[in-house]
């Protein structure tokens, strides 16, 4: 399985990871190893098995629409790197990192 450098760039962009060239080279190799492993798994004959996204047999696990006390803003913000009043603060949304 060969992964292209462009694909690594694309995945890094989607994950909003700013990587150096050296890091991208290293991750290219690591991701290829993972994909090779998946390729081995795909060789297993599963033609007699039903497709499934779940390993358990659970279905219809639902909750009644009854509100419970939330944890509140103070607790929610306790580990936030930056806050303003009871808001979280994040850096610029749009700009170079998304256009990359």
């Amino acid at each position, binding site marked *: 399985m060969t992964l292209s450098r462009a694909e690594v760039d694309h995945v890094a962009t*989607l994950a909003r990871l700013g990587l150096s060239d050296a890091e991208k080279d290293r991750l290219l190799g690591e991701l290829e190893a993972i994909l090779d492993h998946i390729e081995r798994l795909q060789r297993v004959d599963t033609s007699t098995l039903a497709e499934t996204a779940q390993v358990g047999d659970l279905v*219809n696990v*639902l909750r*009644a*629409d009854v509100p419970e006390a939330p*944890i509140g803003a103070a607790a*929610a913000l306790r580990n936030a790197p930056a806050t303003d009043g009871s*808001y*979280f603060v994040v850096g*610029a949304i749009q700009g170079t990192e998304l256009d990359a």
Partner: protein
Amino acid sequence: MTETATIAAALDRYEVVIGLEVHAQLLTRSKMFCPCPADYTSAAPNANTCPVCLGLPGVLPTINQEAVDFTVRTALALHCDIPPFTKFDRKNYFYPDLPKGYQISQYDLPLSVSGHLEFPVGGDAVRCGITRVHLEEDTGTMHHAGDVLQSATSSLIDLNRCGVPLMEIVGEPDLRTPEAAREYLVRLRQILTYIGVNDGNLEKGSFRCDANISLRPRGAQELGVKVEVKNMNSFRAVQRALESEIERQTEVLDAGGTLVQETRGWVEAQGRTISQRSKEQAHDYRYFPEPDLPPLRLDAAFVERVRATLPELPEARAHRFQQQYGLTAYDAAVLTDTRDEADTYEALVAARVPAKLAANWQSGDVAALANEHHVPLQHSGLGIDGLASLLRLVDAGTINGPTAKELLAELYVSGGNPEGLVRDRGLAQVSDTAELSALVDAAITANPAAAADFRAGKQRALGQLMRAVKEATGGKADMPLVNRLLRERLLEQ
């Protein structure tokens, strides 16, 4: 050319293809996958949050039963099929209003498929297919410094809305004009509010619409390049944004250019759409099944139980109002516009107010007062029962129209018992023929010129004589009877 003429000219040459996606927040009490209160407007920022909707590690979501019921109820109202098996998926993208890094949504096995919505546009029946109705979660809200995303150096995040149940209704590209798109939304919102799943507020964003629009030369089979339009927060904005897109796309195509598939935002103040290039380029959501939520099996018995909760829908109710109460199509449509309106009307009729009388007063004076005071009848001082007793007095001839009108305006605000007030203030209509005949004679004697004019054929002269009798009774005369008595007396002399 005017804008309308420009659009009409464009529609001659190009076929416009429009498909709408609506996101509607469900009126549940708690959030979609956690029991935090779903009310995100009245609490302080981030007050209504918990580890699940904050996207903290090690938590498990659980599905809100009511949200599933509401979505199925909507799907049934839109004639959708409910497949027996459905599941949730993760839609992966990074944005600060969704701290998990993915939205729990539905990808290949949604709660419902293959419905339709029918509605009239300019006298023609339009039928728009509904591709699917599925369930997902809303994101948090962001406030940018200076309110301009592009130049903001930081943003404030409030996650109270994050995880509120959100229903997505995907329409087929069956709409051909901006007007039809607008009517589709009006009708869809009416149905959602009727069945009690959504409050239909475009301005506050509990009912949101995105539009896909493309143009192709008339007769062409292949679809044109599709543009997605966002940021429309009123029905009028949807229609204007689509009209503006038709103009823009027509200009590009007429000049021999090619359109770019892109997302554009409607800018109300400028009356045009602008490209939102950068954010949307990297759409690659890498959907996969949500491993933390077991799938749902919805059997026929469940679907029938939900179907039984569906109220009579507006179109059917308007039709019945025409049949049962002898109303015109127009009156029936006005009185079934909202479920409250229709329920009020039927409560009046049930309280022995004649159907036509109830229709006239409810859609006339009562609607005007509700508008003036921003208070619907049921929350006014008068209330539905009060209006019913007032209208019964009108029907019985106890009070005349002008008196009823004055009482209505007064009681709407202050409340009170109409029958008691009529008795205490002596407002009862004077309809005794002998008493009125004497007053008619007196009026003719006191206004000889008007009497002569009427006898000479001047119909308008009667007004002065009618006013004289009305004043003599303190406004309480049965005016149709006065009119008849005056005419009889004037013509016999």
